[in-house]
Structure formats: structure tokens, C-alpha cells
């Protein structure tokens, strides 16, 4: 296993500098580009308005997915009951959940008492549990109103495979995590990166797995989850 190796860089880069007709600069000032249309989208919207937009756009995705995607706007007091309903909506089956204390804080310990909780110490066994899971459940870290996307920022206990292997998925979207669009999501990652924090994986997800590769017919669940339900929680 190698780590930290860079091969052939010097000749490769000096060839490029030659072609560009100068020495490689020590610093490059990032320019001000001519316009910033991305900042105008949902400018000045309140969190409640962004939640409405998120939900509206999720319903547009629902219409385009023949009902494979769904979205509900709820309050925290109804969360446990709604999650419990959603985790049996498409039949009973094994559930996989992150090892994340936020589930207990949200009052979901009871609902998830039979779920398999990702345990990194068990190694590859986790992946097999995710492979056979009927439901997966997660909490969005950053949520994008424009595309109705939720975000998973990789961390111990969150198991990447648990996000992509279960058949059905339920995502809790706290209203406070909603930003207008990818622009603000990227600003957060930029700020984290400046502080030297680069999570190993960051996944923005806005639908269930789909493909149009067979005569352009849209089919669902080609690899990952077939169904996705968002629960937008207005008082979180």
C-alpha cells in the first residue's frame, strides 16, 4: 500500500510551463469573473421559504420519477411516527442506519431499535448488511433548495455503502440545513478546505438511481436505491 507518492511531475509540469511560455507562477490570484448569476437564485429567501422551494422541487422530481421520489413537510413532533410509517411503506425488511447520535436526539431510538447500526469495527460485514437492507435512513448535512438535493459528508459511523445499497431510502432534511443551491454548498466546502478539512467523500443526492440507456426509457433503481423519500422538518 503506497501513500503520498507523486511520479513524473517535474517533467510533465515543466513541459506545460514551457508551452505556456513562462515559469510556473508561485501564486495565482483567482480572478473576479465577469458575472455572478449564481448568487441571484433564491437571494434573500428565509429558511421557511427555502424549505418550501426544496419541497416544491422534490415534488417536481416526484412527478418526473413516476412516484419513486416523494417529499413531506412535517414538524419534529411528527418525525418518529412518520419515519416509522415510511420504514414499512414498501413492505417489511431489514433497515440499516448510521451510527449517529442525532437519531437519538431526534427521538428515533425506538423506531430504529431493530435497525442494523453501521459499526466500522465490524469491517466488511457492514457492507453485506447494507447490500441486503430494504431501507436506509440518513440525515442531510447540507440541503440544496434548487435541486432538492441532500448531502452526506463522509465520517466514521456513516458507512458510504449504507447510502447507496439499500432498496429504499428515507432522508431527514432539517430546515436549518437548506441553502439556495450548490453555490452555497460549495462555499461551505471551500471554507472547510481552507481550514484543512477535506472529508474523504461528499455526496450530493437528488434522486433515486436511474438510467435512460435502453432506448432512452427511464428506468429506476439500476444500481442504488429505487425509492427516496424526503422528510423536510420545519422546526429543526
Amino acid at each position, binding site marked *: 500500500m503506497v501513500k503520498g507518492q507523486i511520479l513524473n511531475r517535474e517533467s510533465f*509540469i515543466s513541459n506545460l510551463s514551457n508551452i505556456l511560455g513562462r515559469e510556473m507562477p508561485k501564486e495565482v490570484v483567482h480572478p473576479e469573473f465577469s458575472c455572478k448569476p449564481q448568487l441571484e437564485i433564491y437571494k434573500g429567501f428565509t429558511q421557511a421559504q427555502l424549505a418550501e422551494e426544496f419541497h416544491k422541487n422534490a415534488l417536481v422530481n416526484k412527478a418526473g420519477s413516476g412516484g419513486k421520489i416523494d417529499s413531506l413537510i412535517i414538524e419534529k413532533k411528527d418525525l418518529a411516527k412518520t419515519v416509522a410509517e415510511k420504514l414499512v411503506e414498501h413492505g417489511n425488511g431489514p433497515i440499516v442506519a448510521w451510527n449517529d447520535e442525532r437519531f437519538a436526539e431526534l427521538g428515533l431510538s425506538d423506531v430504529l431499535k431493530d435497525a442494523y447500526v453501521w459499526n466500522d469495527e465490524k469491517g466488511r460485514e457492514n457492507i453485506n448488511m447494507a447490500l441486503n437492507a430494504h431501507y436506509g435512513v440518513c440525515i442531510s448535512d447540507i440541503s440544496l433548495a434548487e435541486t432538492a438535493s441532500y448531502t452526506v459528508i463522509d465520517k466514521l459511523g456513516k458507512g458510504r455503502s449504507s447510502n447507496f445499497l439499500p432498496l429504499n431510502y428515507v432522508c431527514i432534511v432539517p430546515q436549518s440545513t437548506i441553502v439556495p443551491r450548490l453555490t452555497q454548498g460549495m462555499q461551505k466546502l471551500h471554507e472547510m478546505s481552507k481550514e484543512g478539512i477535506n472529508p474523504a467523500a461528499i455526496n450530493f443526492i437528488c434522486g433515486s438511481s436511474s438510467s435512460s440507456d435502453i432506448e432512452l426509457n427511464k428506468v429506476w433503481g439500476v444500481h442504488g436505491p429505487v425509492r427516496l423519500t424526503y422528510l423536510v422538518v420545519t422546526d429543526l
Partner: protein
Amino acid sequence: MGIKINDQSFKKNLEKNLNDDFMRAAMVKAQDLINTNRTNVLSQLGDGNYREWQKLSGEIRAHAIDNLDFYLTQFSENVVKNGGNVFFAKDAKEASQYITNLAVERGVKKVVKAKSMVTEEIGLNHDLIDAGVDVKETDLAEYILQLDDWNPPSHMVVPSLHLNKTQIRDVFAKSGYDGKDIPEDLAAFARAQLRNEFVTADMGIYGCNFAIAESGAITLISNEGNIDLCTSAPELQVAVMGMERIVATYEDADICISLLARNAVGAKSTSYTTFVNGITEEGAADGAKEFHVVIVDNGRSKVLKSQFKEVLQCMRCAACLNICPIYRQVGGHSYNAIYSGPLGVVLTPLLAGYDDFKELPYMCSLCGACTEVCPSDIKLHSLIHEHKRVLAEEKKISAFWGASMSGAGMVFSRPWMYKLGTSVAPYVTAPLMEDGKIKKGVGILKGWTDKRDMPALEKIRFRDWYVSRGKGGNK
């Protein structure tokens, strides 16, 4: 596979594709569907001022290309900070060998691959297979093409567009499928076959839509989620990127990602947008334990040096294919290369030389539709025109109709020849007539009459008719 997809002559290839009615209808359907969705979704982007976004994206890409040495250096340092390794490959052979050696040295038995044009370009699959590695393409279209004996892709975003569902059913039947040609059933079969592959593979290989210099992140965009699975379970992972995939910051990537999804598939976003920053956290049960990025030149630095540099801004969205009137008629395989449509016309001769691809610049009517849609703000039609100029003036290479064009030039520049030719043409073509139309042309007419009838040439020349018209002749 490499850049060239078959050894047939350009003309033979074209003839074959023009006779493939399903493929031609599929191209028309794809263009119409994707363009309608694209136009719709772009009209909802901000206040609908696409030109502004296009300009911004062009500036972002041009800035990265103008500082490629700096940003690639910064990127490679950040990959290392994230626990990864970087290999700079000057050509296809070096890149493919590095990855193949890695697989052999680590005792890899099975690789899961996510769709990547650059791994096609470097011919990686065949090197891995020759080394005894079991390669599984996991993108549904690529999976179909692999099972169909590595049938080449015909579209950059929908590579299996040229195959119909019955052909796909027959391909799957070779792997045990006994169902009908229903897309949902076919996809369910692929799901069942591939899920286990992801979790049992020793190595994951994927491409890179954008590499982010400030963090060392590889950005991956897909609807299927297969890329995410390739980045999850395998312990050894390799990302392969053309050296021009770089952008400076996450914020720059925002604009490119926003335009890529809208232009490629006519959606606000693909289902999955993923950033991979090197190896997984210590102690994590999945994610890469060993991570490599292979940065490929393979002729791109020659492009950087040339008047075609702007094409390096391309983000491989295929919007130019989806709008091109020529692509609509001839389909992706007629370009005889993995890059097709207007992008292929510009890029293929630059990466693979004019010798095998001198006809490509003539697969363009210079209508400029590609330039109008391109989210990277590349003046594609000007670059194609420049290829034509280089071929005619510098290389003196006559493409397949060079002789006809120089013949026409000679006739048009000599009034007596022109007059004689236009006077005798109706009589010379008389033997080819049937029911008042030319149905079976010869020579230069054949290309036309193979597909449709040609009206008979009038016995009176236009010029003569026009003059006599003013004098009370036949109106």
C-alpha cells in the same frame, strides 16, 4: 480500444451507418428528447440568461487552462495531503501500464469500472484483461456494450444509443437472461448481476468530471449511482483524468457542474454529484484504503500549444452532438472515434492525427449551432473551420471530395466550361432518368440518389430563363 474505434475506411463506415435505420432513428429521438429537456431546464436557470452562465463557465475553464501547470501542481499536493498518490502520464501507454501494473502488483482479481472516456482513450480495459484481471463495466450502457463483445460507444452520454431493446435482450441472453425485451426487466437483470460485483471487487476505477485544485477532490457526476458504489466498497481505487479536467476551486466547480447536468441530460442535476478526497478515514469499514490519481496528457499538451487550445475547456456534456444536424444524420460511429459530433471533429484529429481523420472536418456545415449551445463557451465552428484551413493550405491533404471540389473549381472559374457543362447536363443525365426523376445516380450524384430521388435537370438554364423572363418568356 484507443481513440479509433475500427479499421474500416471512413467511407465504408459511413455507408454502413447510413443504412442502419434503427440507429438513425435513435439519434433523431435522442436529439429531440434531450434538446427539449435541455431548453426547458435552461430557461429555468436563474433568470434564464444562459449566455451569462456560458460566458462565466468559459472564463472559469480558460483561467484553469491558462494556469494548468500551477493548478495541477496544487491539485497533486492536495491529493497527497488526502493520503493519495498521483501519477503523471505523458501518453496512453504510460497511463494504462501504471494502472495495470498496480492491479497486478496488488493481486487484483476483479475491477469495477465506472464510465470514463479517458480510460477508453488509453485502451485500459484490454490491458487489464490481457493481464488476467476480470473487468466489469458498471454503467448500464457500458455493461451492455461490454457484453456485446466491446461494441464501441456511439454517444458520449448514452453510449448504447445505437442498440435497440431486442438487441439488448439478445446480448443479455448470452449471460442467462430469459425475459422479454422490457427496459425495466433488462435493467433489473443488470442490477442483480452487478450489485454483488461492487462489493466483491478488489479495485474501483473511475474517471473525473472535474478535479478541484484547492482540495484535491475528484468530482463525479452520474444518475445511476454506480460511480458512488465504485468509490465505496473497493479498497484500492484509481481515478483517471485528462490533464485539462482541472478547476481552481469548489466555487468554480459549482458553475461547471450546474451547466454539465443541464446540458448533458436536460436535468437540473444528476441524481448523484460526488466529491472524493483521497483515502477514507482511519478505521472506516469502507472507502479507499489506497488511492491513486492518473493525470493523462496523451497529446493534450500539443493542443495547448496550438491554435485549438480552447477545445481543452470542454466538459464532455455532448450538447454539441445533440444539436448537430450532421450527427443527427450519421450517428456517433461514423466519426470512427470515441469522441464524436462537433467535439470529435475538433478533438480527434488533434489527439490522433489527420492521417486517419482528415475527413472529419468536412462532417460539418459550419452552421454554428454547436457554438451556440456549448456550456464551455468554445467557438467550435471556428475551430472546425480552422481544421479545414490547415488541411487545405498547410497539409495540402485533399479529403475524400477534394478531387470533386477542385474539378468544380476549375469549371466555375472558366465561363466557357461552365456554360458548356450546364447546357449538356440534362442530356448527359437523361439515361439515369425514371418517371421524370434521377433515381440511380453515378459518381458524385450517387450519394444523393442512394437516399432520395433527384429532380430532373431543366433543359433551359436558370440564367437563360431569367434573362428571357424579363422579355416576356416563360414565367
